[in-house]
């Protein structure tokens, strides 16, 4: 099945923005909790966390998990 113009543009963007040291899904998963806290506390994303950010932009599966984690944590008070 041929891809259309929109998909060609998407593919070229994926190619143009690829980084050699991108995190894979397992690596992202290991850091998801700390990244969620950074987001929820409104802290500045550190250099090392930018790799997580990039992975989440490129991996819809991990992005879904991250968004669900944020939703689970928001407003929760342990006690």
């Amino acid at each position, binding site marked *: 099945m041929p891809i259309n113009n929109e998909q060609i543009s998407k*593919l070229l963007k994926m190619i143009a923005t690829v980084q050699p040291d991108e995190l894979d899904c397992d690596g992202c998963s290991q850091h998801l909790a700390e990244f*969620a806290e950074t987001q929820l506390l409104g802290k500045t994303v550190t250099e090392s966390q930018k790799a997580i950010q990039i992975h989440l932009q490129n991996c819809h599966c991990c992005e879904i998990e991250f968004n669900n984690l944020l939703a689970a944590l928001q407003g929760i008070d342990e006690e």
Partner: protein
Amino acid sequence: MVAANDGEDWVANLRSVGDVQAAAIAKLNKFLVGGLLRSFSGKGVDAAFCEDIAQEAIVKILNKLDQFEGRSRFTTWAMSIAIRGAVSELRKKRYQNVSLNQLSDGEQLQIEIPDDSAEQPEQLDERRNVVLKLKELIESKLSDKQRVALQGGLSGMTVDEVALHTGSNRNAVYKLVHDARQKLKRELEQAGYDGPTIQSLFS
């Protein structure tokens, strides 16, 4: 937001035995179920599902206590494990009812040269040249698996769906696509099309 807590207390209590451990497990279970309900409410998920996921997550957490490094609060780390379990379970349920024929055997990435007749001639030529080169590179430089994985992603399938279809796993598919992207980027750069040039032409 989650209240501050002491990760070491959690770990110590969960490693303990008897009433101390039971109390910690009960507290963690309540926390996880609450978070799961909050996260998945309105997505066809009920309390029984969340209870089951929390129970399974607690077993995993107890087996992974050595892996908690304290980079986040213990409860955030624990919740991330429960969320991954829930998302995974929901995907499995979804796949039971969804055909994965989107990516039929042998179906691979094919590029048709786009009809951009509305573009300015100069830009049209440049875009066309990039697409022609991309088409050539996909056909000559990528493996069948890479073409299938890219096709799946561009067709709207998630990495998990591609992995399920190809008998692989999420991480392996992500790496397959990442390697393909890097290879295509290198080859396009050698042909004179670097990242910024491509982005300006196809933004």
